[in-house]
């Protein structure tokens, strides 16, 4: 399969990863774990023993480190898909402004101000 075609084209958009076949292959274990967080009992199990929970889903070293760091850009680089990552972020009460601020390297207040400014 030619999984790289979309991936390379996606890089034409700055600061953007299109979640294509290559990402899907790379991120399956990580995304499967994040998908499991739809369930409250699974969220509790993760918080009770993060290491065991990540092992159960077979995360690779890059994915395990990105989860440990709660770093969105690292999670995306490890194959994470934002729709499932949002459920991981939800465990810690982080909303999309928190995630946006982290990814763009500004404070949450500054990130919110940037959003407002785009409406002017």
């Amino acid at each position, binding site marked *: 399969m030619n999984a790289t075609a*979309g991936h390379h*084209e*996606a890089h*034409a*958009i*700055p*600061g*953007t*990863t*299109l*979640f*294509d*076949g290559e990402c*899907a292959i790379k991120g*399956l274990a990580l*995304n*499967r774990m*994040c*998908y499991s*967080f*739809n*369930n*409250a009992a699974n*969220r509790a199990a993760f918080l009770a023993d993060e290491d065991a929970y990540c092992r159960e889903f077979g995360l690779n070293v890059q994915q395990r480190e990105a989860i440990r760091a709660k770093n*969105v*850009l690292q999670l*995306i680089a490890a194959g994470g*898909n*934002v*729709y*499932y*990552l*949002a*459920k991981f972020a*939800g*465990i810690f009460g982080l*909303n*999309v*402004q928190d*995630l*946006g601020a982290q*990814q*763009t390297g500004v404070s949450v207040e500054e*990130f919110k101000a*940037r*959003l*407002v400014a*785009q*409406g002017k």
Partner: protein
Amino acid sequence: MSRIIGTVCLSHVPAIGGAIQKGLQDDPYWKPFFSGLPPVREWLQKERPDIAVVFYNDHGLNFFLDKMPTFAVGAAPSYRNEDEGWGIPALGAFKGDAAWSWSVIEALVAADFDVTTCQDMLVDHAFSLPMTMLWPGPGMPPVRAIPIAINTVQHPLPSAARCYALGQAVGRAIAAHAGNEKVVILGTGGLSHQLDGQRAGFINKEFDLLCLQKLIDDPQALTGYSTHELVRLAGTQGVELLMWIAARGALAGKAREVHRTYHIPISNTAAAIQALAAA
């Protein structure tokens, strides 16, 4: 012959659910968005549709990457929402109409749309929030729903042209449906926003306003964009514009704008509500 009264397209940002739960509709942050709903509700109350076809995108409640349909049509008697990971209480069951769904499915497959059929399908906030915004409680919405999920999670996504054609085929299926029912078409999501990557927070007002105008008088013009172009212009999640394009496809011919709200920002999103009546 059944008849389409028009379309209602609107944003489905999860934070809207939190605002409703906390009763923040009149809060200065939220009011510019929520104040757009009453005129649309009044129009719906006047028209009294029986059926709502809802084009929406699942965000990882019902579908995972193990099996990801490009187009999935609900064929259930009812549809439930569930915990999506942040513990917001699920609503009751939304009414469906399996016989109606199957008649749409028959027509779509006959028109060469090889859809996935779902007799059991959880519906996420992209379905439940617009339904409850348009028909607020108590009680569940008075329409029977036909949910149609379009994949925006996993590229390659269906093209704008394909989504528009899907909508057109749904419109023809409704027009050919025996009986005398009124149908409203919903498209949920958008407009421009991006949650992920260094470009998170991207909003494109100029493009959104162009789309809102084209949806009224020249929807075909929007079918020329590739999905990558839509991501570039509207953001990774702004590509949810595909739902609006599909909805407009169902409304064949001319349209009259009943209402428009456009406000930046709600959460990370350029929020919009647009109702179009069949002209």
